[in-house]
């Protein structure tokens, strides 16, 4: 029998479900918009993102967030498909870190 996917936790013991509402951050909304454009242009589909998230090691999965896992999956797929290179991603990430991130902006 195949192993249970890291996302397939229905019925397993878990703590209380956090119920607090939080407005999405700017980068989170930007991620969804970017994904929509990529999907519309036939670069990738939602199922590839789900599959890539499911392939994350459990520790990395648990430490990340809904949007965090997806932004990593999109980057991973774009690199594997040759749309961007790992070097370009690293370079752009460095630029942003040096100029000050806007991670907190709503």
């Amino acid at each position, binding site marked *: 029998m*195949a192993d249970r996917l890291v996302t*397939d936790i229905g019925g397993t013991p878990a703590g209380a479900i956090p119920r607090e509402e939080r407005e999405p951050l700017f980068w989170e909304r930007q991620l969804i918009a970017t994904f929509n454009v990529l999907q519309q242009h036939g670069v*990738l589909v939602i199922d590839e993102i789900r*599959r890539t998230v499911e392939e994350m090691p459990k520790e990395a999965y648990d430490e990340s967030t809904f949007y965090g896992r997806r932004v990593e999956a999109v980057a991973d797929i774009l690199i594997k498909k040759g749309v961007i290179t790992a070097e370009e991603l690293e370079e752009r990430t460095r630029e942003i870190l040096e100029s000050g991130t806007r991670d907190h902006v709503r």
Partner: protein
Amino acid sequence: MFADTVPAFAPGDRVRVVDLGKPGHVRTPFYVREKTGAIEEYCGTFDNPEERGYGRVGLNPIPLYRVRFRQFDLWPDYDGSERDELVLEIYEHWLAAA
């Protein structure tokens, strides 16, 4: 183009979810495997997400159903109403006549 796909099940048919033991991207959760329910609705045909997960799009669409389960059949220790149900979308290749 694929209009000749004939669904194997009709609303009301009793079905069991088979455990295909298939590794990789699947959309049938563990908790429903080997459980029995009834076809609620035939949804039409869709690209198989088990292929799309690996970038293989545009293959033969496959039949999808909404399947109704009694919560008591899914969770042995369920403490809600006996009439509570859950409807899940499941692709035909995960279903067998029951």
